[in-house]
């Protein structure tokens, strides 16, 4: 609570947080949508914004506003799955490799390096192409997670490696702590900022990646996401027809989302930076 109050003093955090809450509320609204997100021709097509349809309607005969609520919800779910799953993997691999060292370290880092050197984007496209029909929300998230942990696992491992050399590690062992409590009590406080900031940037990356895959037509296009909304708008020549609301809606939502995430990440990682934290501890 104390921490939150301090964080809110930073305008970047406050603004980012408010944006995210608004977007989340929007996503939540989707549960009360009067329309089915995938059915066509529920409303008149191609109508500009009006009181009835505040963001107009699209070429498939769907209300853009309500469609957007589903899109943001699905995009957030994809990104959260990708971010959280890859975080869990990165943390496990990083801690294990860093603390155990030796063979464990070499094997794990070998796998991570393998993932890092292959041209990630091509593989992603290839896999998506092969599995196109299976690219549901969850699967898209998992696919992105699979490619999103390697670099961060390396960074976490490097930090654990340097922490292991510090004398308080030994003091903790002398105090009778088990390996598990050593890691959770001594190391986690140092790695939390890293985990957190990589989580946020990973979420942002996943959102971007989903859009790219969608625009290339490599996910199930009938499921509304920020990416598929953009894809439909582009293929239906929104620009040419002057139907700006088809493009502007997903675009604005994406930009707001990315900016909010960026500010949150900057602010939180500054807040959690151990050096700053020591100063604050001193300041209390």
């Amino acid at each position, binding site marked *: 609570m104390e921490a939150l109050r301090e964080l809110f003093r930073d305008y970047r955090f406050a603004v980012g947080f408010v944006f995210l809450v608004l977007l989340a509320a929007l996503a939540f609204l989707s549960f009360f949508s009067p329309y089915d997100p995938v059915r066509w021709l529920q409303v008149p097509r191609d109508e500009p914004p009006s009181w009835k349809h505040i963001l107009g309607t699209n070429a498939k005969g769907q209300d853009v506003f309500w469609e957007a609520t589903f899109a943001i919800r699905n995009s957030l779910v994809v990104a959260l799955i990708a971010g959280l799953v890859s975080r869990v993997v990165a943390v496990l691999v990083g801690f294990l490799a860093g603390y155990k060292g030796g063979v464990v370290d070499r094997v794990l880092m070998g796998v991570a390096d393998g993932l890092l050197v292959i041209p990630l984007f091509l593989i992603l496209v290839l896999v998506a192409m092969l599995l196109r029909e299976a690219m549901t929300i969850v699967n898209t998230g998992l696919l992105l997670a699979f490619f999103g942990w390697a670099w961060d696992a390396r960074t976490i491992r490097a930090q654990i490696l*340097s922490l292991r050399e510090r004398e308080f590690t030994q003091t903790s062992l002398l105090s009778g702590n088990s390996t598990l409590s050593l890691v959770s009590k001594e190391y986690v406080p140092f790695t939390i900022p890293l985990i957190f900031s990589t989580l946020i940037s990973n979420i942002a990356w996943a959102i971007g990646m989903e859009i790219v895959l969608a625009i290339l037509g490599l996910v199930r296009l009938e499921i509304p996401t920020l990416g598929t909304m953009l894809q439909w708008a582009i293929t239906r020549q929104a620009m040419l027809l002057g139907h700006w609301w088809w493009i502007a809606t997903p675009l604005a939502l994406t930009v707001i989302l990315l900016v909010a995430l960026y500010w949150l990440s900057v602010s939180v990682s500054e807040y959690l930076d151990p050096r700053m934290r020591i100063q604050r501890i*001193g*300041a209390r």
Partner: protein
Amino acid sequence: MDAIITVENLQAFYVLEVMGERKVIKAVNGVDFAVLRDEVYGIAGESGCGKTTLLKAIFAALEPPLRIFEGKVYYYPNGERVDAFSLAGEARRKLRWTYISYIPQGSMSVFNPVKRLRITFLDFLKSHVGGKREEELLTLAREHLVRLGLTPQVLNGYPHQLSGGMRQRVAIALATLLKPRVILADEPTTALDVVAQRAVLQLLRDVQKEFRSTIIVVTHDMGIHAQITDRMAIMYAGRIVEEGLTKDIFARPLHPYTRYLIQSLPKVGDKNTKESAPGSPPSLLYLPPGCSFHPRCSEVMEHCVQEIPPLKKINESHWVACWMREG
């Protein structure tokens, strides 16, 4: 009198907020002294009595929770008097490291562990010496290290590859790089073996002779004080309890605490049980009333419990804060 630093009635406290309760740690509690040009001034005292805090205040490195409650510290660059606490920004940056430099305690752990020492040295030089190429700066650093009897190869390594003693010497090298007028050295020899201690003493003496800089040495090692300082002060619980010429302090310690310090010095060849001062130093949070040494003093009088003894002049150069010496 040619003062280079004067400290007037300095009170520097740590103010902490612990579970809603305000705690004030009186680390420096009314300290007065002047350090002269071209001398080595020693400060000795019990662990935790505020020596490091005093140096931080002199260096005007005031980060919360450390706050100055009263008093002033003056510098004298080019003969004019400057209030150290009023300096800010560019003016302060200019004086730091060229007028006054600080070798912090435990300086072996101040190096950035993930940077090669060369980078640390270069960063330091770049931010203080303008208009030179990297190569020239490196040469400068190397020459300096050689002067201190260190191998310039240390620059290629990481801090953790050096032993504690070596790191300490490199830290001293870094702080004396710009040949400052005043050097504040906080426990500069603590991590070193006696042979290396001698080398550091030798080095500090050389710097002092060559550039006529003033050195303020804080150490609890009375051997170092005996070897290098001209004058010294004994601190106890945030106050100076005795000040005088080093040889007078050793020959005729006046304060009971100083006497304990001198008499508990062990010597090779002497296995007789040494008495240390009974009890333990007071918590700076809850200072005893009156003289803060009175609970441990063998000569305590009624007056000692009631009133803090002021620093009183005994002769030209010797001062002591003890009611026994009153009248």
